[in-house]
């Protein structure tokens, strides 16, 4: 009897412990912590962020940071905090994150939420000479809330990761189309908001928040899923994007600055697409690519009727843009390519680097033609008929400035470049490039003339750099050797690498990020190349395949079994028709 009693008690205790454990596993501490952290961060956004008047170039910061009104960096912190609260609350209501990826998403939101206020304080203290005592409790509380969310996310990571994200399957064309439209409109909106955020400190917050949100969406597999509709409706997606970019100058209300920056980004897209052929398709690392950009620019400058020049040849711009400049640079591409054909990858890199320097120094020294270090300036805008494209035009009450017209011209060039690139990649030449990249000896054994194929890659890459350079000369109205240094070669390479080698949309994204970021952070321009070098190192370390990798590149650069298995699984799925 006593025995049975004791077992009952034991069972009861066991039940209680079990129930407690079950309860505990349902209401896990991290699950509770996440929305609490979000709530704390929201509260932090409503506290004082500065206690005293902090002067920025004589203008007090008080206006939007001491008041409860929202402006400045705390707007972006608040958005992240609300997102954390909402997502943490959602996970709490669902009791359990189904996969570790949800925890990862939460962690990324939290990390962003921690970094935004901390970064704001760091910039305030280091760049604006503010005292730590002038900073209110707001950023500290927000950062603490963010850290709580981050820790909560980390705590949820132990859930099974779940299946790798997949592309969303076709439901109907309408759904796919709607997804494409919504995503592109949101992206365009984010772009416009980014341009509208003027204060560099606030922009830093905006950028970090955007990165965190993007990272969170990426861990939830949203981007991978969206790739489905975008692949299926690629022509529609590209057309819509082109329309949005055509509309862009209309949104700037006559303010030309950001149109000019976008036009510069457009040129880098063309140049980077060209480099992508050399590095991405053919696998030849070219570190002197800026030479072709420069030669194209000087060609256009010398034939463009410039005011301050030693050469007075005038060739119509259309001819220069589409024929003369690209062919001249393609010729130099072959000239550089010819002696380097026998070289292995690393030697090639250093020889191309030397070539870039040779061209720059030559431009600097050949005073008789290039006017030496002064360069050629006052290059007029090209004219079509009697209309100088620098004058812009008016349409439906909107004035489109000259650099808007340049932007349209570049969209046309990008379209041409993309068309040629895709056609080339699908051709015998494109396949030969890939073969040479993968294994030169095997490619030669298969009957590919590797000499011609490599020269073609150099020529094609140089061709597009020449086009971009020609527009660049007119857009900036001047050329000088200082504009074509090694740093620009690295910049274009970084655009290709950051965006994703071998993937044109990625290249475009890379160009936009790397041209806009320095302009936006002009206040910190001293350190921008420092950040740039650091970013290259980190990028190679943590995401070598770039932000928007092509599937093939991703496999090559990651080369982990997991990815390879996933890929072959997909292949299998396609074959078996499921």
């Amino acid at each position, binding site marked *: 009897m006593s025995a049975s009693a004791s077992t009952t008690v034991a069972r009861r205790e066991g039940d209680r412990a079990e129930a407690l454990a079950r309860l505990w596993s349902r209401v896990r501490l991290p699950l509770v912590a996440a929305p609490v952290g979000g709530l704390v961060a929201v509260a932090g956004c409503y506290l004082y962020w500065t206690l005293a008047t902090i002067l920025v170039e004589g203008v007090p910061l008080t206006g939007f940071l001491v008041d409860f009104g929202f402006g400045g960096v705390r707007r972006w912190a608040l958005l992240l905090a609300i997102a954390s609260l909402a997502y943490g609350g959602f996970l709490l209501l669902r009791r359990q994150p189904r996969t570790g990826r949800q925890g990862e998403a939460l962690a990324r939101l939290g990390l962003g939420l921690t970094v935004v206020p901390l970064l704001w304080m760091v910039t305030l203290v280091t760049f604006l000479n503010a005292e730590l005592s002038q900073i209110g409790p707001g950023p500290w509380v927000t950062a603490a809330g963010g850290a709580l969310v981050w820790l909560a996310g980390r705590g949820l990571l132990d859930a099974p990761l779940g299946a790798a994200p997949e592309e969303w399957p076709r439901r109907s064309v309408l759904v796919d189309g709607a997804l494409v439209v919504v995503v592109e409109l949101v992206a365009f909106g984010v772009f416009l908001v980014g341009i509208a955020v003027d204060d560099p400190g606030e922009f830093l917050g905006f950028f970090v928040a955007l990165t965190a949100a993007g990272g969170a969406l990426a861990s939830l597999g949203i981007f991978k899923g969206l790739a489905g509709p975008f692949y299926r409706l690629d022509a529609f997606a590209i057309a819509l994007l082109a329309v949005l970019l055509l509309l862009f100058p209309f949104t700037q209300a006559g303010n030309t600055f950001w149109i000019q920056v976008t036009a510069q980004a457009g040129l880098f897209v063309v140049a980077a697409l060209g480099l992508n052929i050399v590095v991405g398709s053919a696998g030849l690392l070219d570190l002197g690519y800026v030479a072709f950009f420069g030669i194209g620019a000087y060609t256009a400058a010398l034939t463009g009727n410039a005011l301050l020049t030693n050469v007075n040849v005038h060739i119509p711009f259309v001819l220069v843009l589409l024929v003369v400049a690209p062919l001249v640079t393609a010729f130099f591409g072959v000239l550089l390519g010819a002696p380097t054909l026998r070289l292995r990858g690393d030697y090639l890199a*250093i020889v191309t680097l030397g070539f870039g*320097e040779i061209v720059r120094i030559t431009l600097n020294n050949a005073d008789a033609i290039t006017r030496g270090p002064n360069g050629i300036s006052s290059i007029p805008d090209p004219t079509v008929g009697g209309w100088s494209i620098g004058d812009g035009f008016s349409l439906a009450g909107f004035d489109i400035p000259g650099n808007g017209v340049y932007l349209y011209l570049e969209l046309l060039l990008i379209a041409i470049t993309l068309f040629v690139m895709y056609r080339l990649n699908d051709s015998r030449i494109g396949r030969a490039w890939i073969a040479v990249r993968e294994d030169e000896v095997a490619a030669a054994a298969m009957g590919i003339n590797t000499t011609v194929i490599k020269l073609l890659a150099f020529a094609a890459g140089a061709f597009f750099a020449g086009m971009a350079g020609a527009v660049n000369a007119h857009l900036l109205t001047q050329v000088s050797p200082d504009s074509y240094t090694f740093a620009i070669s690295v910049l274009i390479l970084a655009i290709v690498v950051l965006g994703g080698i071998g993937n044109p949309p990625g290249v475009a994204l890379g160009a936009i990020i790397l041209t806009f970021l320095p302009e936006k952070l002009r206040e910190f321009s001293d350190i921008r*190349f420092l950040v740039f070098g650091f970013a290259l190192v980190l990028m190679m370390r943590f995401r070598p395949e770039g932000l928007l990798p092509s599937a093939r590149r991703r496999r090559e650069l990651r080369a982990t079994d997991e990815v390879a298995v996933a890929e072959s699984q997909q292949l299998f799925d396609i074959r078996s028709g499921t």
Partner: protein
Amino acid sequence: MDELIQQLANGVTKGSYYALIALGYTMVYGIIQLINFAHGEVFMLGAFIGLWTFNLGVSAFGWGGTSVVALVVVLLVAALATPVIGVSLERFAYRPLRHAPRLAPLITALGASFLLQQAVAVFYTRGQLQFPDLFPSTSFQIGGASIQLLWVFMVTVALVLTLALTLFIRTTRLGKAMRATAEDPDTARLMGINVDVIIALTFVIGSALAGVGGVLAGMYLGQINFFMGFIAGLKAFTAAVLGGIGNIAGAVLGAFLLGILETFGAAYLGGQWQDVFAFCVLILVLVFRPTGLLGERVSA
């Protein structure tokens, strides 16, 4: 004739610090097949560390003018501090990418080069800095050419260090391990060699030599800036290729040869074409003898 000797002496002196940088390039390339773009920056940092050490010495011990103690201390500190940079680069930037495709570490090296250069530019100075004359500026005459004692010192240091390095690689256990790793890292690992340590050691030696080179170049050129490592590094790599990369004797030979060729090129074509001349030499060598003058050979 006097002119000839003068140019020759200039060229050989220049070659001596190219050689000290080229050794690091060639050893690292020989062992992990990576063009360590940041190596030129290690050289530049060597010069800056030398200058800081000297300034510290001036304020702490009242160094002034030329002194043997100052010279030795500055050289030693530069040689001891630069390996920290080199090894950090290896540990945090290159090692994680050792099995990645070749493009990845190369781009990392470029990024690291930018990072180091800009770190000096941002946190210290973008301007030219005067480098102190640590060495007595006496000179003597050979024929009609005026040769500075410093130049003799530089060439001697370069040659002695090269000799020491060669002996180290040929005769010591570590040197043997280094050769084995360069030959075949996987087999070396099977033979019980700690490949990671050997690679780190390569960076230590290479960086120390570049650090010494930086101080010598500072004394030779009289002024230093954050950008000096870029062109010097490029030249040194050219020299390593010229002699046959991976080959220590080749790197030194290539460096002296490049220094001499460049000086003569500058004298007869005009100084502004000096760099163009050096790179043309590089391209010509690679076209006609891609393995360099002495051929590619694994360390020693």
